Every structure is written in structure tokens, then in C-alpha cells.
């Protein structure tokens, strides 16, 4: 056996570099984990993949009634239902992704304590599977655009950038929360609450210009603010403040890198304390 492979296992403490090479070697497993999550998500359900679009759709109907009809919140141009849905699609993705990835390690206890592979794949796999849902819900959005005869603009080309922003924000938050959840199960209870409040501090059901100018920079610190504003810009051609979006995307990238590093630092204790 002429294996040149050599690996040294040593005590690990403190910050570690991220092992991209190993993640690349195991890339097939990430695909399998995503595939598993997609397969089992809607197993033994009647409506199957319809759930992916029902959630933002029903939320859109209810929010339109409460905020548009009753509270007279106006959109920034397009029909309120289109406006709300364009915000709810990325928001639903983000909130579900954060909740599921935050719990992913503790629901995979058996995997963590019985077999080795890059741990990072567990929370990332949970998020990857939800991207399918996001695409499904954008399919419904396309149908709504046709129904309302709302024109598509060239800004649509920006959509992948904001999708990436949503993925990075969800992954960053998911990595940090899942790692903390291993030691502190408080996370399990805190996340649903945080996600619920997040809906209101992010301009999902109201347009960004409702926020007074002096608070805009603060809003930019919310990684999902830029994503939601960006989705509306790309899908509906709404006016957008590039300052806020740029800041917000920067925060997403920062959150993702921080998530990778924090997760890496904490992962070697997972099997001992989970």
C-alpha cells in the first residue's frame, strides 16, 4: 500500500484555520445531506412541496389584510400583495433556515458522537435544502407578476447577489447558533422568538422609507434588511438605497466568516458535550 496520506491528531485549542481542502474532499457528503433533507422534508405529507409556497402565500394574504387594509401601510409602488410577497419569500427562507440549522446539530446527536466528517456540513446542509423551497416560492411569485401584469426590469440580474446575501446571513447565524446550542439549549427557545421579532425590524411588511433617515444606517446593520430591499429592487424594480444594501451585504459576509471561525473553534468539543 503506497499511501502517502499522513494525518496527525493533536489536542486542539483556540482558533483554527478553516480546512477548505477537507471540505472539498467530503463534498459529495454535503450533496447527500442536502438531498436527504429535501427527500424527508415533505415525506408522508399530503401537500408535499406545496408547503414551500403555502407558507409565504398565506402570510402574504394575512399581512395584506392586517397591515394594508386595516393599518393602511402602503407599498412603495407595486400592489401591496406583490410587495409583501417579494419580502416574505426571502424572509421565510431566512427564518426557516436559521431555525433549522440552529437545531441541526442537536437533532443529529447520533452523527456527531458516532462518526467523523466535517461538522460544518450539518448546519449548511439544512440550509442548502431550503434553497429549493426558495426557488419554488419564487415560481409562485412569477405567476403573481403575470397576474398583476407588473413589468420585469433589468434589475432582475441582481437577484443572485441578494440570494447569496440571504444564504450567507442564514449560514452565519446558523453556524453560530448551532454551535452554541450544543452547550446551551437556551438557543432552542431563543431562536423562534428572535426570528419572530426579526420580521418586524426588517422591512418585510413595510417599505424601507418608512424608517426615518437617521435610523437607516442602523437598519443596514441588519443583514436581512439589505436582502429584502434588494429582492424588491430586483423583482419589482423598486427604488433602493445602495448604501443600506451595501452595508447590509457587508454585514452578511462578516457574519458568515465569523460563523465559520466560531464554529471551527467550538467544533472539537461537540462530541464531548452534546
Amino acid at each position, binding site marked *: *500500500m503506497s*499511501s502517502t*496520506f*499522513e*494525518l*496527525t*491528531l*493533536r*489536542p*486542539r485549542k483556540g482558533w483554527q484555520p478553516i480546512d477548505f481542502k477537507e471540505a472539498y474532499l467530503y463534498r*459529495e*457528503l454535503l450533496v*447527500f445531506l442536502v438531498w*436527504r433533507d429535501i*427527500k*424527508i422534508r415533505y*415525506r*408522508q405529507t399530503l401537500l408535499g412541496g406545496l408547503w414551500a409556497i403555502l407558507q409565504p402565500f398565506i402570510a402574504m394574504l394575512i399581512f395584506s389584510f392586517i397591515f394594508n387594509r386595516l393599518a393602511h401601510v402602503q407599498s412603495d409602488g407595486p400592489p401591496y400583495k406583490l410587495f409583501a410577497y417579494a419580502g416574505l419569500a426571502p424572509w421565510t427562507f431566512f427564518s426557516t433556515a436559521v431555525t433549522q440549522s440552529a437545531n441541526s446539530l442537536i437533532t443529529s446527536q*447520533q*452523527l*456527531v*458522537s*458516532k*462518526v*467523523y*466528517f466535517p461538522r460544518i456540513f450539518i448546519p449548511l446542509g439544512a440550509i442548502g435544502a431550503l434553497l429549493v423551497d426558495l426557488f419554488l416560492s419564487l415560481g409562485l411569485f412569477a405567476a403573481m407578476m403575470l397576474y398583476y401584469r407588473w413589468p420585469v426590469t433589468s434589475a432582475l440580474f441582481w437577484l443572485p447577489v441578494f440570494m447569496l446575501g440571504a444564504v450567507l446571513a442564514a449560514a452565519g447565524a446558523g453556524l453560530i447558533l448551532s454551535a452554541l446550542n450544543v452547550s446551551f439549549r437556551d438557543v432552542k427557545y431563543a431562536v423562534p422568538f428572535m426570528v419572530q421579532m426579526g420580521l418586524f425590524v426588517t422591512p418585510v411588511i413595510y417599505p424601507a422609507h418608512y424608517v426615518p433617515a437617521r435610523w437607516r444606517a442602523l437598519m443596514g446593520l441588519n443583514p436581512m434588511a439589505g436582502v429584502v430591499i434588494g429582492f424588491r429592487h430586483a423583482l419589482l424594480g423598486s427604488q433602493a438605497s445602495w448604501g443600506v444594501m451595501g452595508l447590509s451585504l457587508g454585514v452578511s459576509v462578516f457574519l458568515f466568516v465569523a460563523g465559520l471561525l466560531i464554529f471551527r473553534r467550538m467544533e*472539537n468539543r461537540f*462530541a*464531548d*458535550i452534546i
Partner: protein
Amino acid sequence: MKPILEVQSLSKQYKLGGKRIRRTENFRELLQRALVSPVRAIAGRKAVESTKEELYTFWALKEVSVNVNQGDVIGIIGRNGAGKSTLLKILSRITSPTEGEVIVRGRLASLLEVGTGFHPELTGRENIFLNGAILGMRKAEITRRFDQIVAFAEVEECLGTPVKRYSGGMYVRLAFAVAAHLDPEILVVDEVLAVGDLLFQKKCLGKMGEVSRGGRTVLFVSHNMAAIENLCTRGIVLHQGKLHYDGSAKDAIQTISTAFPR
């Protein structure tokens, strides 16, 4: 030729949970002590104790050194709590050592439990792929060995059924079959042969023998002394985290029954 596995004064310390004894108090404990103690004092009960105490720990492994050569089939034996599983967990990278190091010179696969990563909602076919990937197989490898795995597990008719509807026996047969078709240079196996009925256990032992005769390096934890004696070329006895004996499998079994009778 260098050993395929070098274990150098390996130690693993665990912190015992339950009482949550730490060196430093965290913020919550500080707050709790500050707020709750006066209330308890009024109620005439005992104050909340400070948790600033000595860390309560124990060494699951202490300075274990072993060199494993290619082709060795090593049985690791010892009473409960001897550190066998901890050693395997470090070798399979599930947990990191507290002190010492291990040099691994080859592709290592470990099997600490049968059916790790099986998902009850997925079908037999889907679980073969998922479990194979989790154990470190490439998709192409799994595809190539798929028929062998299915034949070994004897579950041909149920490949499209979710494994939650499998009988216990079918489930473990399938799980073991996937693992048995791993093809690493070093195989680390925890007590997993005690599955299925007697006939299937025999088949598993046969497979293990086949693997070890094929020049593969195997580290094998078991309480089944007959299996150890049959399969292993070398035996290691661990006791309370320390290496107690390293020699032939037969002598290792002899040692354990005389030195540490139940």
C-alpha cells in the same frame, strides 16, 4: 517501514457534568448567587453555594502508546470504563485528545455503531447511499458495491420500503452490510457484531475474518473473547485508561481473566 498508526502517550480528560463545577463563575451563576441567596437567607434556607471549586475531572485515557503495523488485527479488550471506546473515538477523529498525538498513515474508516445516519423515513436503497457517504464512501464506490451490499443484507424485496417499516433484524442487517463493504486501509470497529440472529452474527464474523486476512489493518473492540481469539493477531488490554498489556491475543485474554476477574 513506518507503522501505519502511531499512538504516542495519548491522554483524554473528561469534565464530569451534572454538578457543573467550574473554575470560574459565569455571569448567570454570579447573578443567581447575588439575587437568590438573600431570598433564601430570609426564608431560612441554605445559601446558593459558590461554584468556584476545583474542577472535577477524570482521565478516560492516560498516556497510552501503541504502534500499529500494517496488517495487524488488534483486539482491544478491557472492563467497562477501561477507555476502549474513548481510544476509538480519538482515532476516528470524533473527539480530540487532551494530550499526546496520533499519526495516521492511511485512509481510516470507523464503525462505532451500526446504522449511524440511517434515516427512518428513507427507503433501504436511499439509506445505503446516505449511510455509505456518511461512513466515507464515494458515490461511485457505493454504486459499484450496491448489489453486493443488498445481497449480503438479504433485503432485495424491501429496497423501496422506508426502513422504519423494517423488522429489527432487517434493519441491522442492512446497516452492517453497508459498513462491511467499506474499503479503508485501517478499519476501526467498536462492539457491533452482536447484532442480528446467530446465523447473521456468524456471517458478520466471517466477513470480519475475510477483511482481516486481506491484509487490512483492523482495530477491534469486543467483549466476545472467542471472536477476539479467532480474528486477532494481537491483543491490547486497557485498564482504567492505561495500557496494561500489549502482546498476543491469546495472552491478552489470559491477562484480563486473571488480572481483573469480574
